[in-house]
């Protein structure tokens, strides 16, 4: 990450960007396409669903631990607005929320006064407003790109869009892959596309959105995950939030197991971002437990894990207030984002 804050994570109660300065995670440079590895990837849906279905019953965090985990979830949120009616005013409000995700009195009680979200995620035209609104906070701006959400605009324009967004100040680029390459088994084509996107991103980190809801099978998800990592993705991400099915636990399990395999074979840690459909605090805890179990604690940091979410934060705020006061909360007691 490009940010250069010198405070420790403990002091700020936040920030991958900070810890990355001290112990920066080397970027995944990618490896040559290994078709043998890709074709050996298997995903048994029933077994995966069974694991996903039983996980919430296997792990539970209570009281202080629950509050801490929810705070951790906030630090990993890509607070997002991706609407046709976005305006500078709307983006400014969102960025303010990213800087102050929870009411200050609650954060003070938790001992995490400087907690922020992991990033703000917007369309290209909103990058400038967001960068200005977040100036000095260390919170990066992520931009969706490459003809988001369908990814069907001319290839050279998709490349150009990435370059424009980086130029405009986006430190993270969320690209969408061409689903048709996966559906037609054109793994070389997917690899080449991803390599080009990564190259266009330059210093900005690239998150590869697989649009898993449109890939048909979990085996395709596993293979697409591997190919994108081989092509140099810094993160792999489930979905645009615009498909009919977005992030699910089974899909997440397939993708993070691919990340684990990639790390075991190459030594490079690739990040994971489930996006869309995660709106409850309890779900966030389950996702964090899934990551902790399958990938390990190192991935429970914003440089390797993000939630793509817009309404999740509101539910977490209510839970945190309940933790602090013992009384159940109401949404109107928390500033909207």
């Amino acid at each position, binding site marked *: 990450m490009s940010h250069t804050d010198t405070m420790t994570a403990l002091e700020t109660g936040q920030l991958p960007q900070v810890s990355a300065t001290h112990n920066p995670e080397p970027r995944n440079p990618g490896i040559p396409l290994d078709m043998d590895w890709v074709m050996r990837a*298997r995903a*048994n*849906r029933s077994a995966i669903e069974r694991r996903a279905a039983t996980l919430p019953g296997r792990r539970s965090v*209570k009281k*202080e631990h629950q509050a801490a985990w929810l705070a951790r979830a906030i630090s990993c949120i890509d607070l997002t607005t991706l609407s046709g009616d976005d305006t500078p005013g709307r983006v400014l409000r969102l960025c303010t929320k990213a800087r102050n995700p929870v009411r200050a009195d609650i954060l003070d009680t938790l001992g995490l006064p400087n907690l922020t979200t992991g990033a703000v995620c917007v369309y290209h035209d909103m990058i400038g407003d967001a960068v200005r609104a977040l100036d000095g906070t260390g919170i990066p701006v992520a931009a969706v790109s490459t003809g988001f959400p369908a990814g069907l605009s001319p290839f050279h324009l998709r490349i150009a869009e990435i370059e424009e967004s980086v130029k405009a100040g986006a430190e993270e680029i969320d690209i969408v892959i061409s689903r048709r390459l996966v559906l037609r088994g054109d793994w070389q084509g997917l690899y080449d596309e991803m390599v080009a996107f990564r190259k266009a991103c330059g210093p900005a980190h690239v998150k590869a959105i697989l649009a898993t809801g449109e890939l048909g099978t*979990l085996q395709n998800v596993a293979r697409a995950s591997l190919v994108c990592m081989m092509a140099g993705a810094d993160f792999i991400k489930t979905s645009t939030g615009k498909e009919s099915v977005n992030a699910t636990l089974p899909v997440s399990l397939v993708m993070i197991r691919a990340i684990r395999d990639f790390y075991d074979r190459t030594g490079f840690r690739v990040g994971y971002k489930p996006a869309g459909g995660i709106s409850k605090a309890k779900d966030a805890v389950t996702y964090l437990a899934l990551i902790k179990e399958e990938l390990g604690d190192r991935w*429970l940091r914003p440089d390797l894990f993000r939630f793509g979410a817009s309404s999740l934060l509101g539910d977490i705020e209510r839970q945190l207030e309940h933790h602090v006061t013992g009384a159940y909360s109401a949404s109107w007691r928390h500033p909207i984002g």
Partner: protein
Amino acid sequence: MTVKDIFETMDYGAAPEAAGDALAWITDQGARFGCFIDGAFAAPVETFETKSPATGEVLAEITQATQADVDAAVNAARRAQGKWARLGGKGRARYLYALARLLQKHARLLAVLETMDNGKPIREARDIDVPLAQRHFYHHAGMAQLMDAELPGREALGVCGQIIPWNFPLLMLAWKVAPALAMGNTVVLKPAEWTSLTALCFADLCRQAGLPKGVVNIVTGDGAVGEMIVASDVDKIAFTGSTEVGRKIRAATAGRGIPLTLELGGKSPYIVFEDADIDSAVEGLVDAIWFNGGQVCCAGSRLLVQEGISEAFHAKLRARMDKLRIGNPLDKSIDVGAIVDPEQKNRIAALVDASDGVIHRAACAVPDGCYYPPTLITGLSTASPLMQEEVFGPVLVSTTFRTPAEAAEVANNTRYGLAASVWSENINTALDVAPKLAAGVVWVNGTNMFDAAAPFGGVRESGFGREGGWEGLQAYTKPVAKPKALKPVAALKGEDAEPQPVDRTAKLYIGGKQARPDGGYARNIFDKRGRLIGQAPIANRKDVRNAVEAARAAKGWAGASAHNRAQILYYIAENLAARADEFAARIDLTTGGSKGAAEVEAAISRLFTYGAWADKFDGRVAQAPMRGLAVALREPCGVIAALCPDAFPLLGLVSCMAPAIAMGNRTVLVASEPFPLVATDFYQVLETSDVPAGVVNILTGAASELAPTLASHVDIEAVWSFCGADVAQTIEAGAAGNLKRTWTERTARDWMGDVGEGREFLEAATEVKTVWVPYGA
């Protein structure tokens, strides 16, 4: 730790389930429990402590039942049974439904009690044991409702003695009690001494449900109480537990004429092919061997990995093991709880310490006390003791294989046959291997899946009988019949040795060939007037050995198509019909009767019946609540030995042979002892009917001489006997050795009538194997 600290460490922390309500329930009951007999708790007299294995704390005092208690329980059950059966299926359905509802209403109490008493993680008790127990009562409430319409001609057995183990106390109670009650039986149940609390809580629920007095009786105590139940005047024994105790029960009940269901130990294989979803197969092992700390009869405790992926697989497995959380079973974030008792823990430790393999104990933190770490032992061969012996703890042993055929061979290289898992993404591989495994349950790409609608049970020394589904009801019903006493049939006597025109030498029929008896002795056979009509060979134990070897070698028969088997049966009928007059005359001559023609006609019809059945005794797809198929297959038992009835020398033999071979078994038939010469004529019919060598083997001689050898022969899967009580006793006592299935009839059967054929025979000739195939693209 502060929130700020945890924000960095991201530890789970403690998430204990509250024990207060369960402890309050125990206190409310006085913390001292008497037996539940005739609808009421008796006053506790002599008691022992039941402890929480996780903490060692005493939970309650439990009664050590006396002989008088067991007698009172059996008597109460006896008094209640007639009225309970006469209530009718629909009446009983209401009670079972009420019990299911009560189990649901008190689900949390039962789960916490179970965890405290047994040491299993609260997640398992809460999410698996208790819901499955409820499901069993709901399912069998339905069975009770449908019994009168769907099971005509079946009725309750009477009073059932039921003895259950400590690993799934409430669930095993449900598996035993629900089908018994549904079918109109009453029960005397003994929970394991270490884990009686949920059974006593269930007794309380029986009261709340208004269950008639005496229908359910719970007696508590150690193995001595179990022995008392076995010895008492009950009509059925159902036991789940160790093979060792199962064997004792088999021996103790031999000759009593009561049906037995035994669900015993296992060393179930967990087979991983190179094309499996490896991560899912690794995760599956968590559910296979670390479920309930491996204290599961069907635990996937024997890992077989295809050689090419074994190193990578073991590396992933070790990494997964190291992340397991072991500790306080009431904590909601615990994967592995306490071992049920220090005695069991010491046993596990001793077995592992004696192993010659490479031992990996999970790197997870293990609390002090009655805990044992998840353990993987690699580098073992099939000869290693731990590849064969059941550990009943969180210990997985591993070896490798090269091909699907070798996987099946190694998997079946065991005395047990309870369950198996097969992992492959190739449907051809998975569905090829599943039927080849000697197991009552096979899970494809999964493990430890259970449901009330899907039969569960084992083969070999894992026991016999099924629990669950329609098949499971066989174990709690019998045909409605008024049995008549079996009259002994004596051989005709004579001394007159008239020379025959041309001497015909009757032989044994072994492996498709006529064979002289090993002993070289024969017995004179006379007609009614005392004239010598021939000699019948006297088979001895070596002839039995040879016949079983021939039958074992004819393994292709099991793989022949049902259509093909039907064709052979029809062909036998055709050739018998061509010689009908000759056989009728022979029967009349040898028995001194006059109904030979009718018997031949009945035998031909019987062959037609089983020709008809060969391709129609279907398996079933059970309605288990999952996306997938749970298929209850009807597989041949293997080698069936039958001691055929004396009275009908042709029809009796055919009535045993035909259903057995129709279902794909190979047979060793002991012909009618007084009238053996019809059977020795019959092999000529077989010889001309394309029956493959070894599928039917015929011995003549004394049933009482051959029975012990047949019963103790470990390469015979089942023995049938229609030769009276003495032979039945011999068979059942001898069968305790390898725990083979037995069907021993002490009473007279109307072989000429409808009851001489049909489903009862087909069920005896088949094993139910439930193959679970979850699917999903």
